[in-house]
């Protein structure tokens, strides 16, 4: 049932090339989930999030020092290896330092016609961030209009926002099915559903979601649910890892990932009478990346609530090796979850993960969880 999503995920470059040909337009590579995709889409362009390819590579060392996360280097490698040669434009909305380097090195060494750096505020908790971000969006729009030679109307922005909202609502519907004691969706399937959503046109993605939802609601899976796990962390599209976890007696039920719920959790609310302010508010109010979660820790109660709502047994906390933003949260988050009755397992990721040793850790964790139930 999720075959289309897997195909979009695996053959993302082919999809992009087809879309460009069919729409006689361009693709804009997005670094980071804080990029306002609605604006790019309203400009008639396709926003596509850049991911790595989970392969070891030897091309980024001259550009990014080895102490930065493997994901950001994997992303840059795609550009340096010419896999995205169809991509004429790139945009980043600033969050972590690691990914910024992928953007600036890409701009310097991969041929692109358009590159835009959007200084998305980190202090999303101040009321001043809202008008500031709106102002930045105005600047971004001007820049896109200059590049495309086309005006971006408020109507187009509104339409785009509503299309993106619909996508979020539909994905929420799928996630709601996972609250079931025996969910009809595996974590593997849900992951590829969300990840493919930022690789394709939302129109296509919405159509596919609408097609499978009725079936999904009545589907039963021929597998044991086992332990209900939540997975929390940085970027993660490691399908091999998720498959492994779900083969040893567990199901991934929900997540807090930038390639998971943080991407689609909240909708744009049309409350300001000003579409740009509405969009700015949406990106400010979304579940925060750790580098933007201060002075208060808003991530923690959000994660806890999700764990409760989805009736989770345990939480796997993953981080990309060297990821400072998440390292700055993890010890406190672990304690917090434990104090609230949710055991945690911590795992460090690279572009490829050694499944053998990972399996040992996950199985030990699951054993521990089942013992908890006994006592």
């Amino acid at each position, binding site marked *: 049932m999720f075959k289309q999503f897997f195909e979009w995920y695996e053959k993302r470059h082919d999809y992009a090339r087809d879309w460009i040909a069919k729409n006689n337009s361009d693709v804009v590579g997005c670094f980071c989930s804080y990029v306002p995709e609605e604006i790019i889409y309203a400009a008639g362009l396709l926003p596509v999030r850049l991911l790595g390819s989970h392969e070891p590579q030897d091309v980024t060392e001259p550009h990014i020092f080895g*102490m930065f996360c493997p994901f950001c280097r994997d992303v840059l490698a795609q550009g340096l290896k010419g896999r995205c040669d169809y991509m004429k434009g790139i945009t980043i909305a600033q969050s972590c330092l690691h990914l910024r380097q992928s953007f600036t090195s890409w701009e310097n060494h991969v041929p692109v016609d358009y590159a835009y750096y959007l200084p998305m505020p980190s202090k999303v908790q101040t009321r001043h961030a809202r008008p500031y971000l709106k102002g930045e969006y105005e600047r971004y729009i001007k820049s896109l209009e200059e590049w495309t030679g086309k005006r971006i109307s408020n109507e187009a922005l509104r339409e785009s926002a509503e299309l993106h909202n619909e996508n979020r609502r539909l994905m929420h519907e799928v996630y709601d099915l996972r609250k079931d004691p025996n969910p009809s969706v595996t974590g593997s399937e849900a992951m590829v559903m969300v990840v493919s959503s930022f690789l394709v046109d939302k129109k296509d993605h919405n159509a596919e979601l609408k097609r499978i939802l009725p079936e999904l609601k009545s589907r039963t899976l021929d597998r044991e649910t086992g332990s209900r796990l939540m997975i929390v962390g940085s970027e993660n599209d490691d399908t091999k890892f998720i498959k492994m976890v779900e083969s040893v007696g567990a199901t991934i039920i929900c997540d807090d990932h930038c390639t998971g719920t943080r991407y689609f959790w909240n909708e744009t609310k049309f409350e300001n009478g000003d579409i740009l302010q509405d969009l700015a508010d949406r990106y400010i109010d979304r579940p925060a990346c750790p580098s933007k979660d201060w002075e208060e820790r808003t991530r923690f109660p959000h994660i806890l609530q999700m764990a409760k709502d989805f009736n989770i047994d345990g939480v796997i906390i993953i981080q990309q090796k060297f990821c400072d933003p998440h390292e700055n949260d993890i010890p406190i988050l672990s304690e917090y979850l434990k104090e609230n009755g949710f055991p945690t397992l911590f795992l460090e990721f690279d572009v490829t993960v050694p499944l053998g040793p990972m399996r040992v850790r996950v199985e030990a964790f699951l054993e521990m969880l089942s013992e908890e139930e006994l006592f």
Partner: protein
Amino acid sequence: MAEYKTEPLKCWNKAKELRLKYYKDYQEAHKKGGIRWTGGAWALDAVPAGLGRDVYNITGEPYGASIAFDKKFSLECMEATEAKGWARDLCSYMRNYWGSMYLNKFAFGGEYPEPDFCYQDHICCSHAKWYQHVAEYKKTPYFCVDVSVGPYNELDENRLMFVVNQLHEAIEWMEKTTGRKYQDELLIEAVENECRSTSTWAEICCLNMAKPAPLDEKTMYSLYVHGTLAKHKKEVADFYEELRDEVKYRVENNIAALPNEKCRLMSDTQPPWGFLKVFRYLEKYGAISIGSLYTFGLIGIWETKPDGAWGPRTTPMQKGEKITNRDQALRILADWNLSKPEWQHFYDPDLKTEMMLQIVKQWKLDGVMLHLNRGCEGLTCGIMENRLGIAKTGTPIMTFEGNMGDEREFDEKQVMTRIDSFMETLGLQMMTV
């Protein structure tokens, strides 16, 4: 036979005293009802100055560096931090600082002095999170200002106002938190002092264009530190003017930092604080590091002059501008800080490469040494692109790996060997005299 004459700095002792007094004042602040705040060296420290003349701070980075000098204590701090589950690749200043807090040991003797509030700026990923943890651990009020609004050459009113509005908010917050009435005249004084001290520091760095250089980078570290502690204080601005006059005197009288100066280099990022002997090792080859973008631009504020040269930024006072109210003071303060050279590479490494090449040209350098500092992702951000950009021009450049605050990540022998290889490529031999 030495080529140049040399003599120690006359104001060296004063520099030391000033620094120790600063930490003592912080420690004893509460005795006379004063206020203590803790935050980063880049937190716009002129702002809390408006709360009174008895406001003292420690800034985390120099404090973390001070701990790093004391290898034994630093290791204790690191281990205490790791015992709490924190990763080893996090900012090493932060880990030293947190360790001191967990162990309740102040690096200058006694217990870790409790701050009244935490006040910070945010530009790298760890900045805001550092004091978020201090505040939650010590149950202290906390306010952080987001200054990551893009490079200075693209600053617009919207971006400036984002920072200024937060500063206004910070002041209201500080009044509420401390119960004190804010005094705008003190803010204005502090802003003027800051402009004076940071511009004068840039002047001092410019004097190092002279051959022979009057100062070497290792010495400069002990002098720029005052700017990282309290650039808004009159005593720091006054000290820098005194220092500048002495350095001018040295230039006029050909007094060198290194009597056998043969080769002029610059470094980059914080040095490995536990291994400053690296600079003494360079001297064996007659090589001197005259500074770095880090030493020049961490607290120095610069501008490009009409003739294209890099020089100290003209202060508002030098322009005849009079600061008369809070909003004006905050606007000037924000604009002044946003032009900081060390804040530009966060958005584009090319901006830093340009400045580094300007330094190579103006200070007439023979090579560049990059410290690939595993302890600071903020200043190492984009460093490999800086390397490429500089190497492209044919300027000799080398890299060595290390950590500013965690000496376990510094391999002394390996680094010295690399320096030997680099010196070879520059055609230098170790001097036997």
